[in-house]
C-alpha cells in the first residue's frame, strides 16, 4: 500500500502544512478532499500540482461529491493532477454514463463503495464495460463497524479494479478500535499485492485534536515486540 494522508485529517491546515506533514511522516501521497460543490479553478489546480511536485508528494486522489455543475472542472483537475476523481457510487446506469465521459476524456475515475461485495461487483462490471485503465473501485473501510470476515470476499469481488482504499480511523484511533483488526486488513491488502493508496482519515470530526497531535509527531508508535502472537490471524 502507499500510505496517503487525506486533507480531511487536518481541515484547518494549508496545502503547505499538509505537504510538509507528508514529507516528515514519509507518506507517499495526499488525497484532496474537495468540499461539496467545489473543484477549484484551473489556475489553482496547476498551483497545487506544482507545489506537490516540488515537495515530492503525489496527489493520489480528488475525493468529491460530484454534482453536474462541477463535472467539467473536476475532469480538468483530474487530468492536470494525474489523479483519479473519487466519487460515491450512484445508480448503475448513471454511473456508467459518468464513467464513459471520464474515459472519453482520458481521465481516471473511481467509484466508492463500503464493505459490500455486491456493490464492488457492480463497479467491476462498469469498469469491464468502459475501460479498466480509466475506471476503478474505491473501498471505504470503517474498522469499528466492518467485520474482518468480510475482507476476503470483498478483495475477491474487487479484484484488480481496486485502486483506492480509505481507512476511517486509520491513524491514532486504531489503538482503541475493536472489530476489524487493522493489522490483519493491511496484511491481506499486502498479500493481494495492492499497491494503491491507503488513505488515512478520521472516523469522526471529534478526533481532529488526536489526529493533529499524531500527525505532529516525528515518528510512529514503536514496535510492541512483546505482543501476543495470536492477536492477528489470517485464517478466515
Amino acid at each position: 500500500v502507499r500510505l496517503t494522508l487525506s486533507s480531511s485529517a487536518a481541515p484547518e491546515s494549508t496545502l503547505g502544512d499538509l505537504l510538509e506533514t507528508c514529507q516528515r511522516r514519509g507518506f507517499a501521497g495526499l488525497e484532496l478532499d474537495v468540499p461539496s460543490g467545489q473543484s477549484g479553478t484551473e489556475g489553482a489546480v496547476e498551483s497545487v500540482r506544482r507545489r506537490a511536485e516540488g515537495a515530492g508528494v503525489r496527489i493520489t486522489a480528488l475525493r468529491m461529491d460530484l454534482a453536474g455543475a462541477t463535472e467539467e472542472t473536476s475532469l480538468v483537475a483530474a487530468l492536470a493532477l494525474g489523479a483519479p476523481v473519487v466519487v460515491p457510487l450512484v445508480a448503475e446506469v448513471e454511473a456508467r454514463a459518468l464513467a464513459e465521459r471520464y474515459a472519453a476524456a482520458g481521465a481516471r475515475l473511481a467509484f466508492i463503495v463500503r464493505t459490500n461485495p455486491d456493490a464492488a461487483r457492480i463497479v467491476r462490471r462498469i469498469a469491464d464495460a468502459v475501460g479498466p485503465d480509466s475506471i476503478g473501485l474505491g473501498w471505504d473501510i470503517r474498522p469499528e463497524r466492518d467485520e474482518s470476515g468480510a475482507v476476503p470476499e470483498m478483495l475477491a469481488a474487487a479484484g484488480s479494479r481496486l485502486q483506492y482504499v480509505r481507512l476511517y480511523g486509520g491513524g491514532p484511533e486504531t489503538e482503541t478500535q475493536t472489530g476489524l483488526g487493522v493489522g490483519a486488513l493491511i496484511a491481506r491488502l499486502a498479500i493481494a499485492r495492492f499497491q494503491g493508496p491507503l488513505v488515512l482519515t478520521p472516523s469522526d470530526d471529534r478526533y481532529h485534536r488526536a489526529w493533529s497531535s499524531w500527525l505532529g509527531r516525528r515518528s510512529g508508535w514503536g514496535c510492541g515486540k512483546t505482543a501476543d502472537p495470536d492477536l492477528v490471524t489470517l485464517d478466515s
Partner: protein
Amino acid sequence: MPETTQNPIELDVRIIPPREKHPTIFQTFETLEPGESFILVNDHDPFPLRYQFQAEREGQFEWEYLEEGPTVWRVRIGKR
C-alpha cells in the same frame, strides 16, 4: 494498469497498533512459499524484529535492508 497484479508484497506496518505489529508480520511471513519474500515498511529500524526472527525462525529467513531511514525503513524478508 491494474494495481493488484505482479506487484511485490509490501507490508507497511506504520499505522498498525504496536500490539498487532509483530503478529501481523509473522502471519504474513507464514503465507510465503519458500523462495518468496515481502518488503516490510516501517518508521524505525526494525532490528528487534530481526532478533525475534533469529530466535523463532533461525535459518528459515533472509533479511536485507533496502532503505535505512531517516523517515522510512524498508527490509526485504524472505523465506528459505
